């Protein structure tokens, strides 16, 4: 559990950070909270020669709620998400989901940017961002661009982010008042990834469903969304179940996960419905 040799960089601006990525290409990796990258480095499954630590980049911090839009800096920690009262009022599902990530010590360091950018199917925030229909702002040396969360994930650990880009902000529309919500997650223990998890929002404008760790990418299904928007719970569950493709692992065989996914989703829908007004 000793990482290989690497050079450590600590830029203080996004431009400087992006410049380092341009310069070192795929020999560099950005470091946010480090909860995925550092264990991989200790196992020597990741051997970046240059580590670009983003913690001094002020532009990547802060939560803003303005007009109908919420914008969260990539380096905002899970703890800050939980602790931000305005955010909790505007989008309570964020707090509910963040509280189910790992444990307090991890959440003091783990960031939303790291969680969504890594492309790990086990992470909770990518699924939640499908549900919220978020957009990611990504920054490179030549400027920024935006990518829809629903188009960001290409495979396990493969995303639309280029090697020389940094995911800088997570932006999504503020849900209507009275939107019912639920983030339902089953895990083996505190600190574990989901065996199955579901994010559900039910509002006046429509419903939204996404699921986590039941395929290579977060599970998002237009059919499931449409069905739930029309109040068809059975149809929504069936459509979501058609979209999942869980793998057998220590959390259990695929057969179990498929069944569990349906149970978890039904419970999330039920709870979201009970909270909708």
């Amino acid at each position: 559990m000793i990482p290989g040799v690497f050079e450590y960089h600590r830029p203080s601006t996004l431009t400087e950070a992006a410049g380092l990525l341009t310069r070192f290409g795929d020999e560099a990796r950005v470091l946010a909270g480090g909860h995925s990258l550092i264990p991989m480095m200790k196992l020597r499954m990741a051997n970046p020669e240059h580590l670009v630590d983003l913690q001094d980049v002020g532009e990547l911090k802060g939560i803003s709620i303005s007009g109908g839009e919420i914008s969260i800096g990539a380096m905002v920690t899970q703890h800050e998400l939980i602790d931000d009262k305005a955010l909790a009022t505007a989008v309570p599902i964020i707090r509910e989901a963040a509280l189910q990530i790992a444990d307090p010590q991890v959440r003091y360091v783990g960031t939303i940017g790291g969680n969504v950018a890594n492309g790990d199917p086990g992470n909770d925030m990518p699924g939640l961002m499908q549900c919220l229909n978020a957009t990611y702002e990504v920054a490179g040396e030549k400027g920024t661009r935006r990518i829809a969360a629903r188009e960001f994930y290409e495979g396990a650990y493969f995303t639309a982010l280029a090697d020389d880009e940094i995911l800088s902000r997570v932006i999504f529309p503020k849900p209507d008042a009275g939107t019912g919500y639920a983030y339902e997650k089953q895990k083996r223990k505190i600190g574990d990834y989901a065996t199955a998890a579901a994010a559900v929002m039910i509002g006046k404008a429509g419903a939204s469903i996404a699921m986590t760790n039941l395929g290579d990418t977060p599970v998002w299904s237009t059919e499931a969304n449409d069905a739930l928007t029309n109040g068809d719970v059975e149809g929504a569950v069936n459509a979501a179940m058609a979209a999942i493709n869980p793998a057998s692992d220590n959390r259990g065989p695929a057969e179990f996960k498929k069944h569990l996914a349906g149970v978890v989703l039904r419970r999330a829908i039920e709870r979201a419905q009970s909270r909708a007004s």
Partner: protein
Amino acid sequence: MTEATQTREDRATALKGLGTARKRVEDVRFTQGKGNYVDDIKLDGMLFGDFVRSPYAHAKVVSINADAARALPGVVAVLTAADLEPLGLHWMPTLAGDKQMVLADGKVLFQGQEVAFVIAEDRYIAADAVELVEVEYEELPVIVDPFKALDADAPVLREDIRDQMEGAHGPRRHNNHIFTWEQGDKAATEAVLAGADVVAEEMIYYHRTHPCPLETCGCVASMDKVNDKLTLYGTFQAPHAVRTVASLISGIAEHNIRVISPDIGGGFGNKVGVYPGYICSVVASIVTGKPVKWVEDRIENLTSTAFARDYWMKGKIAATKDGKITGLWCHTTADHGAFDACADPTKFPAGFMNICTGSYDIPTAYLSVDGVYTNKAPGGVAYRCSFRVTEAAYFIERMIEVLAIKLGMDAAELRRINFIRADQFPYQSALGWEYDSGNYHAAWEKAMKAVDYEGLRAEQAKRLEDFKAGKTRKLMGIGLTHFTEIVGAGPVKNCDILGLGMFDSCEIRIHPTGSAIARLGTISQGQGHATTFAQILASEIGIPADDITVEEGDTDTAPYGLGTYGSRSTPVAGAATAMAGRKIRAKAQMIAAYLLEVHDDDVEFDVDRFVVKGAPERFKTMKEIAFASYNQAIPGVEPGLEAVSYYDPPNMTYPFGAYVCVVDVDVDTGVTDIRQFYALDDCGTRINPMIIEGQVHGGLTEALAIAMGQEMAYDEIGNVKTATLMDFFWPSAWETPNYRTDWTTTPSPHHPIGAKGVGESPNVGGVPCFSNAVHDAFRPFGLTQTNMPHDHWRVWKVAHDLGLHG
């Protein structure tokens, strides 16, 4: 308060002796981060070792090329089996009469096996160099199933003993067979089974798991070539045994070896054995003349150091139609992995598995155990239990439940019918043990009343009705266990490890000002010895526990002992402490009599002093006596006040307990919620109730881990699937239920203070109790037996296979 106004009770309270909930003296340093563990040891010029390990479970080692590693600046040496062979150290003896490769000698037998040892100037360079060692392997067929290991055409794992059909524990009948151990009367048991009203039969599997202490294993070896002295610091549960073994295998005279166990962050049996890291560090220090540190990481700890359990226990239990048990038969297939590295007493290759008749008066029984080699990590240690006692307790407590199902009886009532009665102690069991004392019926009735057993069953019946009516998806299970432990190994006449009798020791020195130091042959790994042994002494010699230092773990200063595991410290070293204290007291009596100018027989001990019989106003306190022993010439009495005692216990001790667990089981998700756990322990005389409660909480939590999720799992080609704490279940406070503790007190008749030991009881009793609760929830739907761990998917699968998902 002045001495004159103190009552006898005040004086007794001030001692903080037996029965006092004294705060742990160790915690002052531990809670401030001031402990001193092996990895805290830093010596001048210290080098660091790290292992190249096998990625394969079974393979021929074709070649090892360490040139690139040796060329890396900062690398001092790379050792392979070829380097150790001239010293005769490429293999080492195990504690179980087998031998084990220190570094791969021609082949590897499990994933994670040590192949080469890199020594470098810092820990980082060592890790970099490990990556540079090129090993060419040729894969061989892998055996992970102990039953397939005994197939006629199974590949031979241990080429080193191919066709040597006489093993350390008798004949071997197959190249992958280690031993067969038989106890009891086979013919008589089979006759009982053949004629019984009812016979219940089941395969009970106790899965492979791992003690996984918070601190992993490690050592620092420091060879002083000028004085020819080796100092070995390490995470050793038995420092003196390590010294003797180190001397025997290295050829260094035993007086030139000093073994020090500093603070140890949990052992649970994992730190009893000898590991290749220790041997390689010693060799590396001898070769380089510098201190060498080796500390394993978590993955190395889980994949290569001693595992526990992995017993396949086929059972048959015979009873009358009224539920009186008439016979018990058990055949166990024991998966030991690549080398038999158990840490059992020599004459007990399956430990004390023959305690498997449990708390019940079973007149006829037979046990046989087959030890088998597979391509898994070596071991088979006692993880928070006396040797194989948790396997035995799990077996009998499951078989009782299986029999209750067969008889259609309540499992609490079935136990009641069969308990050994209080008037039967000392009780001779059919498998050869003499139980010292017990009152099982009293403990059981207290437990049943405490949990309102009838009320729980009524609630469960209502829940079942609601479940069937579709009103709930949660079933309720009630887990019962009455366990009997066998601890305190043990009498030298039948207990030894590598020929070392399993006595233990205590040496006491009383200082002139009346404080004291006691040194023992045991070593605390968190049990709180410095707290409790001082309490035993306080009551024995009348010096306050706060004035007594307890020191362990340094073989240059502590008297010889066999260490701490198998709940043996209190039964054996605790007894030695009391006996040494009594020697002190006997001498103190002579001094007091002299000072009081009366005959020795005319003074008597009174809490913290000797008083003249019939004249309690005439006394000498222990403090006064201690001072006198150093400054007065007393005719016929040597100066000073010291004693040492080596205690050879006449028998084991037999702690017991009655546990009840209530669980809610969500049949759709497999999630279990332990909503109640009651633990009544009888560990004989209670030394420190607070430490007992802490031990019970800890042991129950490890039992929860084992029963509900913890396992060492392998795939079919021998890859370890649970090598990190992501997959190896360690419960946090969140997963840990509330425990309600209780007790009865049945002293051991043969122990000087009547104490029996408690640290391991909750693990022994806890595992079957959690497991029985899960089983019980599904009993109405026809479940008789399912394997642990009862994690979400396995519980879900039980519900699924019983048709509960529609």
